[in-house]
């Protein structure tokens, strides 16, 4: 094996389909951020740096066999829970919520770690469970979910808590927990909804009311969603063109580079661009589901399936909220929104998918 072969061997573990999707998304991300930031190269290079770090991590994870990843699961989960608890006690308060843990310039959201740690630990648990149809399997899963869910909900960050909870439920579903548990959960959620209303914080109630009727406070709570819908709708079929989005370039669209980046993209590139974006996402998600489908390793297919569905969930929630069919929750558009933390999480997830695909049937 010569030097160059050694150098390129790690790249062989990369899945071409997933990689293509990520590269297309990276191109879209850089294009949208360049326009939305008044053509700031600083923003573009910063995001490029995020992608670079992400790729390094992705390649590293892809080259790590699933059993090694599986072995980390209990520790990751434990650290995650400790950090979440620490955040509640000593976290940084921002916008009325303690979500950040920091030392000096480095700040970190422990909930971000939990997005991976919980599915990993649950896949770890269910992959070695002899009888998943037993009630103990279901209860254990629910407890594993409940610990981080409650800690994050307490911050308060109900949106993230719900996303993490959803990932856990996906995992239980794919693992084969009996259907009656899901029906029961559905009933509990439906019944407890009105009761939960009283436990919601003011801003949370506001968000839901605003979602139901954005015009009730068009310059306040409804402003985001109204401006976002205007941006999307005014894009039309072909879009206004790169740099020509008035909503995004004249600052009418809030959070145009982070949570509402989809609206800016839809404004400049229209339905045509949106369909290309969705197709790219479907390429990634469906490829992930195929990897899960083909995997014969219990841990591998569970984690691959759950991560793919969770990845899709983020896309759906983000697009749903920017187009006004879901309430506004702070969810970035995967691999497009500006930011390093979420990017890292998604890249690790994709790395795990590639690892599952590149290391078939090593376990069991």
């Amino acid at each position: 094996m010569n030097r160059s072969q050694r150098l390129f061997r790690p790249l062989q573990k990369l899945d071409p389909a997933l990689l293509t999707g990520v590269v297309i998304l990276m191109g879209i991300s850089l294009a949208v951020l360049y326009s939305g930031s008044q053509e700031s190269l600083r923003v573009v290079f910063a995001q490029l740096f995020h992608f670079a770090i992400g790729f390094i991590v992705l390649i590293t994870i892809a080259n790590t066999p699933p059993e090694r990843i599986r072995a980390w699961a209990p520790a990751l989960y434990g650290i995650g829970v400790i950090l979440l608890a620490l955040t509640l006690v000593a976290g940084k308060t921002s916008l009325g919520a303690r979500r950040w843990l920091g030392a000096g310039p480095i700040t970190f959201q422990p909930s971000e770690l939990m997005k991976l740690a919980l599915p990993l630990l649950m896949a770890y648990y269910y992959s070695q469970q002899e009888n998943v149809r037993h009630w103990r399997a279901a209860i254990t899963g629910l407890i594993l979910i409940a610990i981080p869910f409650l800690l994050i909900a307490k911050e308060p960050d109900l949106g993230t808590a719900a996303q993490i909870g959803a990932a856990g439920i996906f995992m239980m579903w794919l693992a084969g927990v009996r259907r009656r548990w899901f029906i029961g959960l559905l009933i509990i959620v439906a019944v407890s909804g009105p009761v939960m209303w009283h436990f919601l914080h003011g801003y949370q109630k506001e968000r839901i009311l605003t979602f139901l009727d954005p015009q009730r406070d068009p310059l306040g709570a409804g402003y985001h969603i109204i401006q976002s819908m205007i941006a999307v709708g005014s894009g039309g079929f072909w879009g206004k063109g790169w740099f020509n989005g008035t909503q995004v370039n004249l600052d009418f669209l809030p959070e145009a580079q982070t949570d509402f980046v989809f609206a800016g993209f839809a404004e400049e590139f229209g339905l045509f661009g949106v369909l290309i974006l969705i197709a790219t996402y479907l390429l990634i998600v469906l490829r992930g589901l195929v990897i899960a489908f083909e995997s014969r390793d219990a841990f591998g297919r569970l984690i691959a399936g759950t991560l793919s569905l969770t990845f899709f969930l983020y896309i759906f929630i983000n697009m749903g909220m920017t187009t006004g069919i879901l309430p506004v929750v702070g969810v970035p558009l995967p691999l497009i929104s500006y930011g390093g933390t979420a990017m890292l999480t998604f890249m690790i997830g994709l790395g795990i998918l590639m690892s599952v695909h590149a290391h078939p049937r090593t376990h069991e």
Partner: protein
Amino acid sequence: MPLSESLKRTRSFRFRLGVAALLMLLAILGVVLRVLDLQVLHYSKFRELAYDNHVALVPLAPPRGVILADHGEVLAENLPTYALEITPDQVPHLQQSLQFLQHLLNLSPEDLQQFAARRAGKPDFDPIVLKADLNPTQIAAVSVRAMELPGVRIAAMMHRHYPYDALFSHVVGYVGPITAADLKDFHASKYVGRNYIGKNGLERYYERKLRGVMGYEIKDINARGLPVGTLRQIAAHPGSNLITHLRLRVQEAGAEALQGKGYRGAVIAMDPNNGGILAMVTSPSFNANWFVDGISNAHWQSLLNNPGRPLMNRADNGLYPPGSCAKPFYTIQAVQEGVISPDFHTYCPGNYQLGGHTYWDWNRGGFGETGITKALAWSVDVFYYKLAVKMGIDLQDKTLWRFGFGQKTPIDLPGGANGLVPTPAWKRAHLHAPWYTGDSVILGIGQGYLLETPLQLVRAVSALANGGYLVQPQVAKAFIDPQSGKTIPIPNAAPVNLHISAEAMHAVHLGMEACVNTGTCHTVSIPGISIAGKTGTAQVPMGYKNGHTIYNNDSLFIGWAPVDHPKIAVAVVVENGGYNAWQALPVARAVIKAYLQQDQTPPAPAPQKLSTKLSAKVAQSASAHYDAPLSHGEKGSVNPRPAQSTAQ
């Protein structure tokens, strides 16, 4: 784990994965449909919303057209004034800045209250006027501290000004702040960004031409309302300048004769050949400048409480019985219709008996044998009592209508009264009484129910002057395009030929000339100028005292000069408390004299004060126009016939 169990699990996993994938595809289909709904089905709505978000229309107001007298004197102009404007969101500490400015400029608490009122409901990025009409000291005080006063600026504005104050108020009119009532007549969209609208007179009638065409700057604004660029600019088109037939010296002479003596009344001087209004004076008058920025309460009360009702344009809205001024018109009709021949004679014993009632002549001693010339020269009432009975009410009414009485006189001024020509039907409807011959007798000397306006009188007498053509009075002469300097004449309406026979006309001319030369209006005569005229004294019942009716006598005069080549027709009404009223005569004399003897030479160059106020272009076009009438040969000749291209 047994193999079969493993297979079972794999099958279950794959099934559940498939279910999840199906739900996922349904969800993404929902998103696609939603985006389709926004971007395709509701595209135009959102495109419009986005456009409204980022595009701001900034109106650019054009300068209003100036109004000029025939010789180029400026009757209405625009003066630059300076106002202090504050843009609230650019001022870091608004209250402190206001206090500072209050101290600096010595502002009153009302100024600050008005500022708060103007600011109410406006976005903070709109500049709001704090103090209008800054004096040079105030401008200097603000300018030197400009650096300390962010968001505060001095804005130049155009202020409408009437240099002759009260002289032309009723004919030129005035502008004022735009009210909701104004916007019923004029489209509100044309007044965005404007301060003024014509309220009265020429300013109102020619509002659409004077105001010009609004320009717009279409600006790109960001979410904070700050302009980030200009998308398009549509230049404003300045309003047309308006040159009128009005003659400053004639107007001044009329005003001096009326207002100078404290009379209430009106005088109109008109070119009988084309209807051009040379002067239109109403007394008392008011200062048009009071109204420009909204009239103060003190001024308004002073106008309302003035018993002379200065706001009323008596020339076109004042209603008076014409008295003996109606006699020439009856004479024309009677001769033309063959009721009497031109050499008809009748005896005047000083009174006339009809149905047991005695109608007295103004000269109870009687005039003896009287023909048409004498009847007009001395205004012999008995002659016209008899003529009235001969004519009958139908022919009397026909006469009056024919000369334009009883209907609003068409003129380029808003308002105007109809007057009243009484008919048997009218009397039945309004007084529930039949028409008596006695009513006709009184009507025969222009009294009774008959009411006219001075404008109707001047138009009617012009038809006598010009050989039988009813002209349409018109104040404006031409527009001057402010950009090209081109003069665009405003054509006078074609005169209506009344087809008056030469013998009838001749008979009346003789009588009216004799009236000035030897008769009741001799005081009008001016050596060297032939004048035809007729006096009128109208008795207006004012109430009862000790069982007798108290009359108020209005003094009237109609006439023209020169007799054979008329250049000016005049109608004067002076409201008067006395008997044998003659006050109208000196007024008519002053006006005729001013026009024929003083106004024929061009005036001295306009005072420097005025010409600097005009923009260079306006001054240029005004003087260009001012040369025009001279080329028609008016210069120097004593009694030239004016251009009368449109008269016949």
